[in-house]
């Protein structure tokens, strides 16, 4: 059914989201009236699982969604589910996750650390030794929680541990846990660690039961985390609505990043029907200043979560290629030039540029390859085989 966009009459849209800090640009776009100013009447629908968000976007119950970047790629390639071409014309956030470990595992890692444990090379090597010692004592493998098979969290954890020789499938039990269950699972000993977005890492640290081991930006400087996703057929039928949506998101992302508005943004996001957590906890995430230990020790990073800053909002096909490379590395997708091209075509900087003006070049201080991994050679999207060949641990089919 084609609907014609008429300026003046608000166009009704339904957009799904998961209550996480990186939905900030979307939530602020709607609640601060940026979408309304574009003639859009948006109903935000809070969802409970990524599977639901994906399915409701796919079948058209949602016009757009706050979506895991790898799910947009997987859905377009038909991996693990029905193939529905999805476009990502706007990136809602880069980075923003953290790896949190129980106090017991933190102590074990610290005891094995040969250097600064905040360095992912050191922590991964320490993990290798902890895993080897557990094996020698015939203990159960450590259990790590993450949010979805096609998630940046999954790939960040795997990239980090495999770099030091820890096989994420053989040496570790890597399980999917819904984010609201993460803290409970670490408290009752069901998992030893997890990788999740805000605010769950901070909640676990505040309870005094866990340490934040890494911000994921220490593993990859730039990793596409969530995108504003729309169905490809929807985008071609509603170019004007999409343009309005992009303008509203660009305005909202700028509003979120302006420190003047920090308090207001935290207040908006903390509403019960949005994130439903204390504004102060959201503030830590946006500021990139997190309490990493129950004792109150702080760690700060300008890269913790990028919402629009440093070109973060412009979708980068190099990111899509990196995600596809991880799908190949871990056996989720076969390697083919065709699939690589299809994956890259999900991220649409051309749509972004067409509405918001041509983007400036790479921002100063950003990694030259667009990824900035802590280990391995620079990423080259035209040479995935070269990206995968140095790694001993892989499941590539």
């Amino acid at each position, binding site marked *: 059914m084609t609907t014609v966009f008429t300026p003046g009459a608000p166009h009704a849209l339904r957009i799904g989201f998961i209550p996480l800090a990186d939905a900030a640009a979307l939530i602020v776009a709607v609640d601060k009236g940026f979408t309304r100013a574009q003639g859009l009447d948006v109903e935000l629908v809070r969802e409970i699982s990524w599977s639901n968000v994906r399915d409701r976007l796919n079948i058209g119950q949602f016009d757009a969604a706050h979506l895991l970047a790898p799910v947009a790629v997987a859905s377009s390639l038909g991996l*693990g589910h029905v193939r529905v071409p999805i476009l990502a014309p706007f990136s809602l956030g880069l980075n923003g996750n953290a790896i949190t470990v129980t106090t017991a595992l933190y102590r074990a890692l610290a005891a094995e650390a040969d250097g600064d444990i905040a360095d992912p090379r050191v922590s991964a090597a320490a993990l290798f030794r902890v895993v080897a010692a557990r094996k020698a004592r015939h203990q159960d493998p450590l259990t790590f929680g993450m949010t979805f098979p096609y998630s940046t969290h999954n790939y960040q954890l795997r990239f980090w541990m495999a770099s030091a020789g820890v096989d994420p499938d053989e040496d570790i039990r890597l399980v999917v846990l819904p984010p*609201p269950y993460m803290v409970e699972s670490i408290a009752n000993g069901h998992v030893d660690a997890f990788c999740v977005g805000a605010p769950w890492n901070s909640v676990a640290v505040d309870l005094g039961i866990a340490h934040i081991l890494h911000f994921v930006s220490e593993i990859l400087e730039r990793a596409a985390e969530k995108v504003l996703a729309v169905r490809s057929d929807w985008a071609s039928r509603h170019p004007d609505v999409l343009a309005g949506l992009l303008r509203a998101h660009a305005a909202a992302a700028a509003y979120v990043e302006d420190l003047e508005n920090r308090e207001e943004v935290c207040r908006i996001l903390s509403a019960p029907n949005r994130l439903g957590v204390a504004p102060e906890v959201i503030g830590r995430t946006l500021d990139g200043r997190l309490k990493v230990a129950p004792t109150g020790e702080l760690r700060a990073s300008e890269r913790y979560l990028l919402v629009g800053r440093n070109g973060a909002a412009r979708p980068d096909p190099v990111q899509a290629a990196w995600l596809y490379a991880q799908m190949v590395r871990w056996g989720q997708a076969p390697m083919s030039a065709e699939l690589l091209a299809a994956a890259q075509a999900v991220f649409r900087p051309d749509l972004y540029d067409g509405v918001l003006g041509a983007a400036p070049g790479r921002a100063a201080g950003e990694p030259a390859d667009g990824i900035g991994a802590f280990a391995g050679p620079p990423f080259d999207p035209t040479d995935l085989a070269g990206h995968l060949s140095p790694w001993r641990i892989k499941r590539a089919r």
Partner: protein
Amino acid sequence: MTAEAPLKILVIDENPIRRAILDAGLRDAGFSNITLLGDTLGLLERIYAVDPDVIIIDLQNPSRDVLEQMFQVSRIVRRPIAMFVDQSDRATIEKAIDAGVSAYIVDGLKRERVRAILDMTISRFGAFERLRAELEETKSALKERKVIERAKGILMKNRGLDEEAAYHLLRRTAMSKGKRIGDIAESLVSAIDLLES
């Protein structure tokens, strides 16, 4: 159903009433091997123990994402499980999601064997949703009637009206303001509560 082994069905639903409705529906349709799960603690281990052919889960359950992982980790459950991976099942997916339910089916199972289960599940979820909507409606109608009774009482006491005149005053006011009589009664009751508190 012919001489083939009976299908093992696992129902994961936190709502006990809907769980029971679905269980009864599936049994009526001739399925007997049904396991019901109300909570999702240690979900993977329990799925491994049951070894189901079909898993049915309500969409309000965040553990749906846990099930999705089974596409990847076929070593945890014995066989990979897939939900409607066939494009032709799109209509069924739409109906299921509208009804608020999702299903996962062991790969390789004949489509016609599970069709009856899916249809039954979708119709029972739909019936439960209608039941719930009706209940909500009844509840709010009941609440509205109570509020109107209180508002009438207030008018009778303060304006010295009889019951019928009090009701007519409420109705006239509602009509002139273009509002529902329940809303006018609600405003009056709130105002009195404020003044008297």
